[in-house]
Each structure stands twice: as C-alpha cells, then as structure tokens.
C-alpha cells in the first residue's frame, strides 16, 4: 500500500477545507460523507444554526421583557426614526444582493467584477454601521443609555425624579462655578462658553451704559439722539440674545423653580405661606403638573386605574432637547428596559456586522477568482444571516 502517493486515494474534494494542514505523509484516508457539501460549508451552516439560537435567546428576551413590561415607550419618544431604520434595512438587503453578485462573478472567474461587487458590499456594510452610529449618537445626546450606578432614565415623574433633576442641576452649577474659578481659565467647553458669553455681555453692557449716558446728555442733533436710541435698542437686543444663550443662568432658574416645586410638594399651605409669602397659594397644583412645566413629559403618564399600555404621545421636547449638555435625568415610562434591550439587540447585531466587514476586508486583499468561490459563498451565507437577523430586528424595534 503506497500511502506516499496522495493521489491514489483521491480526497473526493469533501474534506479539503479543513485539511490544508495535512501533509505529514500519512495515509490519505477516504471518507463517506453524508451531505453533498464541503466541510467548510457544513460547519458554516452548523455555526449559523448556533448563531440562530444565540439571537433567539436575545430576541426571546426582548419579547418577554417587552410584553411583560408595565409600559413601553413609543418609537419617537426615544428618538427612533422609522425612515432611517427602513433605509438601513434597504442598505443591508442591497449588500446581500451585491455579495451574491460577487459570488456569481467569482464562479464565472471574473475576478475584477467580483472584487467590485465585494467592495460595494463592504461599503454598504460601512454605511449601515455609520447610520447605526448616527442613531446611537442621537440616543446618547438625549441621555438615553444604561448607566451605573443609577439610570438616567426615570419611569415616572415623582418626588424622587424631581430630586434627581435637582441633584443634577446642583451638580452642573457646582461644576461650572468650580470651573470658572479655576486659575488659568475654564477647563470645560461649557465653562469657556459661559466665560465668553459673560465677556460679551459685559462689553455689550458697557456699550449700553455709554449709549444711555449719551442719551442723558444734552444733544444738538435729534438725528444723533435717534441714532443713539436705535443703537441702544440694538445693543439691548444683543444682550437679550446673549443672555438667552447663558446656560448657567438657565440652570439656576431651573433650580429655583424646582425648589418651589419641592415646597409645593409638601402639600402644606400653611408652610407654603410662611416660607414663600410672595408666591400665590398652590391651589390644585400637583407635583406632576409642576414637574411637567419644568420638564414637559415625552408622553402621557400611565395611571394605576388606566390601561398601562395605552399611551398618548406628546411631542418630544423639553429642556434636554434645548440644552442637551445639561444631561438632566429624563422620564420615559418603560424607558430603562427599552434602552437595555435596544442596545443589546442592535449592539450584538452591529458586532456581527463588524466581524463580517473584517472578513470582507481580508477577502479584498485576495484575488477573487473561481478558487475563492467557496470562501465567498461561506462569508455570503454569514452575511445573509446577519441580514436576516436585521430583518427581524427592524420591525420588532421600530414598527411594533
């Protein structure tokens, strides 16, 4: 028996993929495969089936948590945009098509065309990730992300929520005032902005003082007087604009308002009158109403009596939209669980996309002729799987 001759026992092409490291000169064995597939493709299918179970676990978690939740936010409450999601779906489907075209070209031994399609697939994958990144950024900038030790997202406007808002405001004020007093100028962007605004305001105020002084002095020309008055008005307007940009002032205002709410929340008219005689009596004002005034809710509250799932959307506007840098706690019913599951599902999907892109990048360094068709087919299978997962995720996360 001449086991030196590897050609005598032809390897029937079924175990080549895994045996590139063969060559120790032992007997080339013959096998009886059960499936008409290469080993590489077999293991890819098996691997994908384990991946299916992985995502089944994740999606199952989402379904269980979502339908077990007391409340769940509407998509636009959490700044989810269906068109963007749909666009991303389209991008990913297109990339699945291009990878198939790359495979076809490679099979036909058209290496250049195959590479072209492969590049397109790679670019589409990157576009998908880019859009995903844009969407993530939108969430982060609105304070929607999981956070230790305590979430930024509050389920309900209650006294604890208001306390958290106030804590955050105190924190901001401390940060900024420390920052402003530090020798060598402010360290943070907010501090610098504040300082710049202060300087501008001071200059404008100087001008105003000058104009006012001008106006008070006797003048020969009525035109000059009018011009001075006009200039004063213009400067006053400028000052107003600058003041409108002053975040610190706003933060202080907010804090005072929150403190008022705190006192009201004590629900004691007697105390209210004793401590704040200048304020009108609280009447029917409740904490929630005042909290909403400070911070318009992103949607209506659920009530114990009502159906927890029935929610009327409100326009998503509030202080965090106008002044995102304040990073105030936000209030979204079911928002914690929504954020947890959203980042879990899309994050693991994005990880899979990144792995796919890495493999594509490696493939791009190779000549994609017919001998690489098997490889392209395997990575294509994987890419279709990634695509398929997104096809499930898109409606689950964006549409329902």
């Amino acid at each position, binding site marked *: 028996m001449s086991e030196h001759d590897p050609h005598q026992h032809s390897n029937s092409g079924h175990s080549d993929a895994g045996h590139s490291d063969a060559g120790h000169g032992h007997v080339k064995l013959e096998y009886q495969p059960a499936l008409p597939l290469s080993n590489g493709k077999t293991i890819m299918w098996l691997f994908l089936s384990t991946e299916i179970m992985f995502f089944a676990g994740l999606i199952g978690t989402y379904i269980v948590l979502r339908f077990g939740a007391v409340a769940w936010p509407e998509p636009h409450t959490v700044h989810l945009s269906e068109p963007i999601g749909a666009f991303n779906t389209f991008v990913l489907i297109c990339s699945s098509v291009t990878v198939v075209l790359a495979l076809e070209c490679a099979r036909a031994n058209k290496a250049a065309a195959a590479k072209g399609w492969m590049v397109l697939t790679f670019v589409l994958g990157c576009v998908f990730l880019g859009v995903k990144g844009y969407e993530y950024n939108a969430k982060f900038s609105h304070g929607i992300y999981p956070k230790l030790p305590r979430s930024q997202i509050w389920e*309900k406007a209650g006294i604890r929520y208001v306390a958290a808002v106030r*804590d955050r405001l105190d924190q901001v004020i401390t940060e900024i005032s420390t920052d402003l007093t530090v020798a060598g100028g402010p360290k943070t962007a907010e501090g610098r902005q504040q300082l710049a605004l202060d300087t501008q305001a001071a200059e404008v105020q100087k001008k105003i003082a000058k104009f006012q002084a001008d106006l008070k002095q006797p003048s020969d020309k009525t035109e000059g007087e009018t011009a001075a008055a006009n200039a004063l008005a213009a400067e006053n307007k400028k000052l107003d604009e600058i003041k409108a940009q002053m975040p610190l002032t706003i933060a202080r205002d907010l804090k005072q308002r929150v403190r008022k709410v705190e006192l009201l929340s*004590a629900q004691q008219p007697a105390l209210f009158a004793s401590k704040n005689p200048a304020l009108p009596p609280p009447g029917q004002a409740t904490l929630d109403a005042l909290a909403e005034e400070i911070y318009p809710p992103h949607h209506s509250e659920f009530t*114990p009596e009502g159906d927890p799932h029935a929610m009327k959307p409100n326009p998503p506007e509030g202080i965090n939209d106008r002044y995102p840098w304040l990073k105030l706690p936000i209030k979204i019913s079911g928002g914690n669980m929504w954020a947890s599951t959203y980042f879990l599902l899309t994050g693991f999907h994005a990880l899979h996309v990144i792995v796919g892109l890495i493999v594509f990048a490696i493939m791009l360094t190779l000549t994609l002729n017919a001998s690489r068709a098997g490889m392209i087919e395997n990575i294509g299978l994987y890419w279709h799987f990634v695509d398929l997962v997104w096809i499930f995720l898109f409606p689950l996360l964006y549409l329902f």
Partner: protein
Amino acid sequence: MRLSGMDGKNLNRTMTTHIFNSRVALTLAGLVLALGILGCAAPPPKFRPNLVQAKTAGAEKVTLASTPEVDLPTPDKAPVAGGKDPNAALEQAYGMKLSDDAGKAVIESVVADKPAASAGLMWGDVITSINGSSISDRPAAVKALLEQATWGKPMKVKVDRQQGQQIANLLLAVFGTPDHPERVSADGSPDPTLLKSFGFDIDKLQVSAGRVYSEQSGRQHGLYRLHCAHCHGISGDGAGPTAAFLNPYPRDYRQGKFKFKSTLGAEKPTHADLMRILTDGVPGTAMPSFRILPENEREALVEYVEYLSVRGETEIKLIDRAARGETIPTPAELAGGGPLVPDAEGNVTEPQDENNIVAGVVYTWRMADKKIVAPVAPSEEMTKWLAGEMPKNADGSPASADSPAEKRRLASLARGQAMFYGTAANCFSCHGDSQLGDGQTTDYDFWFQWRKSLDTKPAADRDKVIAEFEALGALPPRNIKPRDLRAGVYRGGRRPLDIYRRIFSGINGTPMPAISVLPAGAAPDPKKGVTTQEIWDLVHFVKSLPYQPLSQPPEQLEALREHQIQ
C-alpha cells in the same frame, strides 16, 4: 492478536511520542499547580492590627513610643537612705523603684513630681543604657544610678518602652483575652473575681466567648463567634471578615458609642437597649433580628458585648494616655476603683482616681439606667394619630377635611412640618426639603471624622492618608447618609417613642444632633427651641411621610405588577 504484531517494532517511537505527550501535559499540569501554589503562598488577608498598635477607627491616628531617651536630673548630693534594698535610696534620689523582672532593670513605680517622673520615665520602662553605657540588669542600673552618678548633673537614660506591649499586658491582667474573658493569675490559673467585682457575669461571658461547640446537654458555646464575629470582629472592632461588604459598616464596640438607645446624648445604652437591638435587629442595616435565640443566649451575648466594649474603651483610653506622653497606670491602679456592683437602689459609687480607667468606664455603663429619656405623655388624640387611627365620623367613615377632628390632625401635621423646616429643629438641612435624606451627603460618622478633616486636602495627600489608615485596619471611609424619611424604614425602631428619643437626644456618634428644647416655662420661641409637647407634632409629621401619596410611586408600580401576575 493479528494487529499487535507490529507494535514491538514501533514501540520506541511510540514511546517517545507519548512521553512527550505526557511531558506536555505535565508541563501544563505544573503550570496550573504553580498557579495554585502561588495562590496558597500569597500573603493571607490583612491582619487587623491589634488596637494597641494603632487606634484607627477613632478620630485620629496615634503613634506609641518605643525607645525614648531622657535627661534624668540628679539631686545635688547622694541620698542618705541605705540598707540592703537599694530601692529606698533610688526613691529618695529619683522618686522611682526598680524591680528585677527576668533579669532586666524594670521601673516598678515612679512618684509624681520627683525627678524620674518629671524626666518622663514611666512605670514599666526597661532601662537599657545610662550615659551611653549599656545596662543589662538591675544591679548594673543601681550601680550606675547610685554609685557612678555625678550629683547635680543630669544623666542620659535610655529606656525600652514597648508601650504597645505594656498596654496589651495591662488588658490581659484585667480582662483576659476575648477568648478567655478572665484575668490570669500569676500562677496561670484563671481568676474571675476581678471581672465579677465590676459586675460582669462570668458565666455569661464564658458561653459567649471562645470557639464554637455544644456541650452534651446541648448548651451552645462560642455564641459570639457563631452569631456576631463575622461582622463585628473577634475583638468587637466592627471589622470582621464580612464587615467591608456591609452597608452601613457594623458597630465598633470599642468606641463605647452606640446609636440606638434610650439614654440621653452620649450616655451608654442600657442593658435593655442592647437586648432590644439584638432582639429586633436594626432595620435598614445588615443587623438581623435574633428574636429566635433563647433569651439566656441573648442575655449572654449582650453581657459579652458590654465586656468587649469596656475592654475596648479601656484600651483606647490607655492608648490616648500613652500617646499624650502621660503615665500609664499600673495593673493594680487600672484594676482599682471597684467593686462596681449596683446596690439595692441601683446606685454605684463613682471611682475617684483617674487611673482607675476600667472602673470609670464600667461606671458609665452602670449609670446608664439613670439617664433614660422618658418623654412627656402626648395627648390622647395624638396617641391615636400616632397609632394610625384616623378621625372618623360616627358611622366609621373617614372624617372629611373640614371636620374639627381632622382639622386638628392637619394642624398638628402642619406644626410638625413647620418645625421640620424651622430653625430650631433644622431637619431639612440634612434630611432634605423633600425628606429623601439628600439634604447633605458629605458628612461622616464619628469614626470617620479623620476622613472629614482630609476634605480640604489635595486628592493625592488625601489618598495617602486614607491608605495609611486602611493599612492599619480601618475600613474604607464612607459618607453617612441621612435617613430617607419617606421610605418608612427606621433603624432605631418605628415606635413613636423611638423617633421621639432620636429627635430629643440625637444619635450618638453621628451628625444628628439633639433638638434644642425650651426650658420648662419659657416663652414659646420657634427660633430658639421647641417644647417637649411639640416634639410629638414632629414625630407625627415624620411618621406620616411614608404614607403621603408622594411617597407612593414604587407601590403603584408594584400594584400594577401584582395585577399582571393575577
């Protein structure tokens, strides 16, 4: 066996293969073992240093002397006293006596205001050199002090003063060890009489102390190790192996400061107070209720905790003295001042000598029963409100807000609230104007006062000092958080009486102060203080907070969940 014919030929090669196989495997095995051994050889978890070495859990860190050198003044002329025992001459010349302890020249006693004392020599010092020549035993010291002295000129005396060891020996001489809570006599036999004379029940101490085992009869021994030592530590230093993971940290008995008690201000808790803590636990902490232990076991544990506390406080006082350079008492002085067993009326005599530290500490414990805060009786209506009874109409329905009874109740709440925000009580500055305990969050418990003083220092210095303290066995410092009054969890107990006492006398060792109470008969002045009757309004207000609708959101969520489960 047709197949095995070839094996002999290939054997050498196959053996090489598998020996290498196994060598590889053995290498791996070795690696794992090495890691394992490394793990075993790694230094054991930090020993908590003996309190004698450093006092860390208190407010400061102290260093004890080890080998000081002093200038001992000599009298102008040689002493006249003579005889066989040179101590008479020594006493006359220097005001000290030497004993011959294991061949060493040990100072047996010093007389106040005499040269030895004014030079700073102390009882227990071992003289190691005089004027540069080393001293090995008592005769050598006597010779140097009496025969070679140049009268009128001071001499350099170097002593070995292991104060840490001295204090440990002192404690041993009075308290034994926490494992064997009885003094060991000179001949090595246990001598319980001293602790008995201070009023301790030796029997109870013995079942609490030492290792865990049961007698044949079922009597459990080692109660303290069984139930307490994991958190409170073997010596009651509040730093058992589990302590670092608890919030709040377990109590350090050595400080003699207890939070939840019936007595005034800084007084010691009564025996009944400790029993209550043990029986009910401390809600909102890791201290569970030990209600189901038999009463005799709980009694024994409380007695033992008192013992550990007295022992620890004595130790701290001794260290304080040593650190301040004062004389450490002799064992006889330390153990003096007794007996302190209460007489028929419960009175004990206060020890006069300040060297009788143990008696002084025990005295504060024995007097605790005389310092209990007994509140004035609230009105009958107030009692009902405090018990949760709402004003009702004749038919049993809740009274409306404009009925006189309900109006009175609301007025009481309003008074309470006004006090909460008022200057006399000033509750809101810590507990927050929303009563969530967030008014201040930067203060510290008394045993972390050392940490508070670091607040103003640069971060690097701060970290260095903290690391030093931790190396000495202190737990990582934590802020003390005022109680969230809306949570309905009261560490000191939920009885109106408990809350009254917390308000009236504050919480010992914490930033919570006693309320300022107007003297009896003084004119009402909300800025200066409150009357004792008004404290009940405040109690009423505090007790009503958890039931306000504002405090309820979590409950509402819970209700929804319950709805779902059904």
